[in-house]
């Protein structure tokens, strides 16, 4: 089976100008990759390049053995909750159903299998009892879980999450982490961007440290060192105490 992600000396950016360079990554099915780095480091750019929404300007990139844009049907994408209009008149179940739209087609009615998948996805994120609630009335953490459920309903082989823990309460964070562990145990590859280095260290098999380019990639122990973080974060890194702990501002 082909790798979930295979990036070799990739650069990506907008309008022909690279904003992220030197990305070398290989991710197997079932592995979890965390993208860390300061604001504007290129985490979202990398996620969008995996989706084929921005072009790869150099190097070689394949996603699930295909050129990025062609892999979209096999990818689940979870955006940041605050990028969405909370006032939009949809229920949680309708949001999750969006994950099935490509399967259903343009105008065929939804089928029992689709409704079952929506119910199962909501159950998986612990929100089955919120199915009929208006999306905007849910808490930030619950909205994030609904968006995760939407991605699950598409039954992806690769799951991408853009800052899934931003503004999320502890209960929702635990629920999301639990789902991600279950998914990868079942063979789904997971890529997430995060500011939270503790979560990255706890969850990821591979951590990729970015700031305009890839500074380091590998196991959390090898990548999240004081030296690497200082190098990648520059002025954002602060040394505290004798154990040379590095705190990183988001």
């Amino acid at each position, binding site marked *: 089976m082909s790798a979930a992600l295979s990036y070799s000396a990739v650069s990506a950016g907008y309008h022909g100008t690279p904003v992220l360079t030197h990305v070398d990554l290989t991710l197997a099915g079932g592995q979890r990759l965390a993208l860390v780095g300061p604001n504007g480091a290129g985490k979202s750019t990398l996620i969008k390049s995996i989706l084929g929404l921005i072009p790869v300007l150099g190097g070689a990139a394949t996603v699930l053995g295909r050129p990025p844009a062609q892999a979209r049907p096999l990818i689940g994408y979870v955006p940041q909750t605050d990028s969405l209009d909370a006032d939009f008149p949809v229920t949680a179940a309708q949001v999750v159903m969006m994950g099935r739209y490509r399967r259903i087609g343009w105008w065929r009615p939804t089928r029992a299998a689709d409704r079952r998948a929506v119910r199962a996805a909501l159950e998986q994120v612990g929100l089955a009892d919120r199915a009929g609630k208006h999306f905007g009335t849910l*808490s930030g953490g619950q909205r994030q879980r609904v968006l995760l459920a939407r991605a699950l309903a598409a039954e992806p082989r690769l799951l991408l999450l853009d800052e899934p823990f931003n503004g999320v309460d502890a209960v929702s964070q635990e629920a999301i982490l639990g789902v991600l562990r279950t998914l990868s145990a079942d063979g789904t590859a997971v890529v997430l961007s995060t500011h939270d280095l503790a979560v990255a260290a706890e969850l990821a098999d591979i951590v990729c440290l970015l700031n305009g380019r890839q500074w380091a990639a590998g196991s959390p122990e090898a990548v999240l060192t004081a030296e690497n973080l200082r190098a990648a974060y520059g002025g954002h890194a602060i040394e505290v105490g004798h154990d040379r702990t590095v705190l990183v501002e988001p």
Partner: protein
Amino acid sequence: MIEPFAVPFMARALAELALLALICGPVSVFVFARRLSFVSDALTHTVFPGVVIGFLAGGVEGIFAGALVAAVVTAVALTLLTRAGALSDDASTAVVLTAMFSIGVALVSRRSSYTSDLTTFLFGRILTVTPSQLAETAALAAVILTLLLIGARAIIFRTFDPTGAAAAGYRVFWLDLWLNLIVALVVVAAVRAVGTILVVALLIVPAAAARMITSRLVAMAAIGTGLILLASYAGLLASWTASVTYGFALTSASAVVLALVLIYLLLLPLGALRSAPSPTGGRSPHELVG
């Protein structure tokens, strides 16, 4: 007293408005959700020169074709400009709107019957709708509803989450063009009956009013259609009563739009009540935690 809707031209006017209600209810929901109010307004104005050219070339029968061509061209142009980022602010939309409208006024002012022609184009002639015009509106309504039915799911996804829809494999540009074309076709369908100005009300007010009552998309569309029907009946009746009983002229299309706005105003307190924060911000304490 004569029963107003037993008179053929009143019955045809009501039938025409009923057809428009059928399409404007659902389409207004998309205009509302995509926040296309100003773009819709721009579309109605950019159609104006097409209406005038059509009229100059082919008389009243030419209006339909002229409006159709202008609507399709402007729908494509607006979509392209938005995509290129040139229409990222309201000012550029306003430039397109006023420029096209001025061209229309300049064209129509060359005619000797300038004032009455302008009034017809801007406010329509709902009471002179012919059976063949009714048939045209019905055909166009069928096309619009079919286009909407095919694209609805994808457009809702794109409206709610553009990046998510693109990530799912939808082409956002084509979906935007799809919706702009639908709105443009509604303008074409409505232009002879209610004119280019008042059609904006049919595209914006129904969903905005329905949103005060419900937060479900399908219910909003159905309620929107119902509100237009109600306003059409009330407006035509008021217009008839004003001229027959009291002897003063109340333009029918204006009366319909005024009735629609009145319904909106009556529903406003309901909307405020719905969105009023409860002691827990509208959520149970449990939801705040989870």
